[in-house]
């Protein structure tokens, strides 16, 4: 096992290790306190009641704790079984985790949304976010001394750090110690009211058991909905079954397991259609929200939101738009859907085709003179989702507007990272302001982003765009003797979507960098 783990680590496949570690088996040979005492205390000094130096002065997400322990294994020869590691991660995430509010705004990192353009101040971007995500920092809580030790660890472990661009132009170590440490200790302190309150009021895991009505959207495939059934399978652990379908009728069915950390961090492994998918959700009241993605290809994933049976929630309208003067079928997804649906001015419910507490399928008609714009949808007293009515498409946006795909395979161990795109149509409201209509089917292609890309024939080498799905598969890794200077199959491309609206074509454009493999790929990027 140790050998396997090492191989995974060195191939940069920490994510694989992550999934192993976050899925405990039933039997636990040693409890967390025993492991901490017998295994961690070898280096960490006891401090009073069950506390250990370093460990007891930090709070992190489950992935954060896993990365810390993995670091001890790869860098400090820690010997620990996978089972013990799972036990410790679970214990520390529960007792020294983050409150839900403390992960707000940075969950994209846990959800492996690697095309996120982060929003941090310049200092944090340059001092921390230049090598890893700023979110990795924002998902930790430490006092000043622990932040300072983290700085020392960084420079000690990677001595070239202070020689790199955006470090060699400044007294990096001094700035890290004197500016960043106080700033981080203030921004992300160990002791917070939010965590104290959360510990007191942390919901019981049993609240997760039952049926959940879910809605999702998978770029390149479309919208989906269905029921997720959760049953208890040990403390904070569950069996999970999903049963749903995509808008095109294809099934979305699978089974697996999940575990709840810190009272709300839901991590599941569900095999759908032979694909092992990971669930990273946050539970909040009767809602589960996050992302579900292919474990081996985390760019292939869907936005997911679910409502617990017995609660009353309106989650989604699929599709979320209708053309003025036309009729169309629309499905509402939620829980406890009762009463009359209403779609706002100019939109008439022609017929209710199906109505269950989780699903309401209706035929709608938008009046020819319906004003273009967004309408609040309601079912009985439930609100929270919108329907867009449009006459013309004013603009098509490629989402994500800026993205990174990666070459892979070609004899190497690292898989390719695809580009996956949506074409988002926008309209112009009566007030002249743009509004989002929704995701439309499109025809896709790539072009050279600039003169250099044209000259280097990036389109020819960097990969292939699937015209009808917006899925781009990069080329093989490694030097390519056919290219100038035997360079690899990297490229700088325009991603172009053409949306047809009643015979009129609208195009949108994004940028995709096709670059080299991500060698270091821990659970939190």
């Amino acid at each position: 096992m140790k050998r396997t783990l090492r191989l995974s680590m060195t191939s940069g496949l920490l994510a694989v290790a992550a999934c192993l570690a976050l899925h405990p088996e039933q039997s636990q040979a040693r409890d967390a306190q025993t492991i901490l005492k017998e295994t961690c205390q070898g280096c960490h000094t006891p401090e009073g009641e069950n506390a250990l130096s370093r460990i007891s002065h930090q709070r992190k997400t489950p992935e954060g704790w896993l990365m810390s322990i993995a670091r001890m294994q790869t860098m400090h020869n820690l010997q620990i079984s996978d089972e013990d590691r799972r036990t410790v991660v679970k214990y520390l995430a529960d007792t020294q985790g983050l409150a839900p509010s403390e992960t707000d705004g940075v969950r994209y990192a846990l959800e492996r949304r690697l095309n996120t353009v982060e929003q941090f101040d310049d200092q944090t971007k340059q001092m921390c976010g230049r090598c890893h995500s700023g979110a990795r920092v924002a998902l930790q809580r430490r006092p000043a001394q622990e932040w300072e030790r983290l700085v020392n660890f960084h420079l000690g472990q990677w001595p070239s750090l202070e020689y790199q661009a955006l470090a060699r132009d400044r007294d990096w170590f001094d700035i890290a110690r004197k500016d960043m440490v106080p700033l981080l200790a203030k921004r992300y302190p160990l002791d917070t009211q939010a965590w104290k309150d959360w510990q007191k009021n942390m919901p019981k895991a049993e609240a997760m058991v039952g049926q959940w009505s879910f809605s999702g959207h998978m770029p390149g495939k479309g919208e989906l909905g269905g029921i997720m059934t959760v049953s208890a399978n040990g403390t904070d652990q569950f069996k999970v079954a999903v049963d749903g379908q995509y808008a095109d009728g294809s099934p979305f069915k699978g089974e697996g397991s999940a575990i709840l950390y810190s009272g709300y961090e839901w991590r599941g492994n569900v095999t759908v259609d032979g694909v092992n998918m990971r669930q990273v959700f946050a539970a909040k009241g009767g809602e589960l929200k996050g992302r579900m993605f292919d474990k081996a290809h985390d760019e292939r994933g869907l936005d997911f939101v679910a409502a617990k049976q017995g609660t009353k929630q309106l989650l989604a309208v699929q599709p979320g738009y209708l053309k003025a003067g036309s009729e169309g079928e629309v499905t509402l997804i939620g829980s406890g859907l009762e009463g009359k649906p209403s779609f706002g001015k100019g939109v008439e419910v022609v017929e209710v085709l199906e109505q269950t507490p989780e699903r309401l399928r209706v035929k709608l008609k938008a009046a020819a003179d319906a004003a273009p714009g967004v309408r609040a949808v309601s079912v009985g007293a439930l609100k929270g989702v919108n329907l867009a009515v449009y006459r013309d498409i004013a603009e098509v946006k490629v989402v994500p507007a800026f993205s990174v795909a990666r070459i892979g395979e070609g004899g190497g161990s690292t898989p390719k990272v695809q580009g996956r795109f949506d074409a988002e149509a926008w309209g112009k409201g009566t007030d002249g302001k743009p509004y989002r209509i929704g995701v439309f089917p499109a025809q896709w292609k790539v072009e050279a982003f600039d003169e250099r890309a044209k000259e280097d024939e990036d389109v020819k080498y960097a990969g292939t765009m699937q015209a009808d799905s917006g899925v781009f598969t990069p080329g093989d890794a490694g030097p390519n003797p056919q290219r100038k200077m035997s360079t690899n199959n990297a490229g700088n491309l325009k991603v172009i979507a053409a949306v047809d609206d009643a015979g009129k074509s609208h195009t949108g454009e994004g940028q995709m960098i096709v670059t080299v493999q991500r060698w270091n790929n821990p659970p939190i990027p």
Partner: protein
Amino acid sequence: MLHTATRGLAAIAILGACSFTAHAEESKALEAGHEYMVATNYPNNLHVIDLQNDSLYKTCQMPDAFGPGTVQLSPDRKIAYVLNNHYADVYGVELDSCKQVFHASITQQPGEKARSMFAFTVSHDGKELYTVANPTLMLNDHYEVKQPRLDVYATDAGMDAKPVRSFPAPRQLTIMQSGDDGTLYVAGADVYKVNVKTGKFDVLIPSRHWKRPLYSAPDVLYVWNQQTHRHDFSLLYTTAKFKDKKEDPATADYLYGFFNIDLATGKTETVDFGPLTEIYFSGMRSPKDPNLMYGVLNRLAKYDIKEKKMLQAANLDHSYYCISFNKAGNKIYLAGTFNDVAIFDADSLKQIGKIQLPGGDMAITTAQIFTR
């Protein structure tokens, strides 16, 4: 830990094993008057190339792991000192015999792990070796980054050399050369001159802190520590020259330049030599015409320094990091990245040859050309 403690012994053992199998070739002495080039590559080769016929003369096997493989030659050109084993050790290899005659670990203090970021050289008289150690104290449950150290070794100290003197040093130091008067010139945030007896660092050429009106602070990352025919110490920089006091980056001129120290006189220069249009990893002035500057990475380019303009550029089969001239200055040898040395005519920039090396990637090696 065990590994650290026995590194010196392991080194001897490995060298011994290798010289046993390839004894005849390795002990082939270099010939007087011949011009040679040395370059290192994976897994841990020190190659000697004879420039009389541009072919591989012999290969010495080095101990431990490769990287960065930076070579510094003793003034008599008999010993190649190599910073290697992941920036952790300096090995002295006698070129005539391939025998290891010197070893110093960058790590010297109890409990520390230290690395040298290309920062080492031999003194002008060959008697001392200077290294800058960037140490970290490895405590039980945390690290403490310590102040860097200039460590001075006697080159005759053998296989477990200990510093004869040690001085505190600034952070972020890189390459260095020893002047004819014994002054040590070290690149860092600025270029320092160092008294190796007292350990006193003085700014000789302001770099990060230069006061050139309308110029941005320069960006310097220069890790090719070459011992040039011109007997100088030289580093490339890039900078922005603004139009006016508004310092608008959009309208600035982006420039390439070099810092230079004449190792005989200590005279310094800070010279812009042309517009920044592409990146060069290393650059060097022609030994025969000091007004010509060459740079290499994805192309080999030639500049007229006085005119501040690019004269010519040649395409390359692949990237090369490290540029060297033969002494006559008519041939350029490109090393780094793959395992071949490309030879170019310095006047026409036409490729005139290629030397394939056994072993793997040369990576960030610093090649040296010298005459015996």
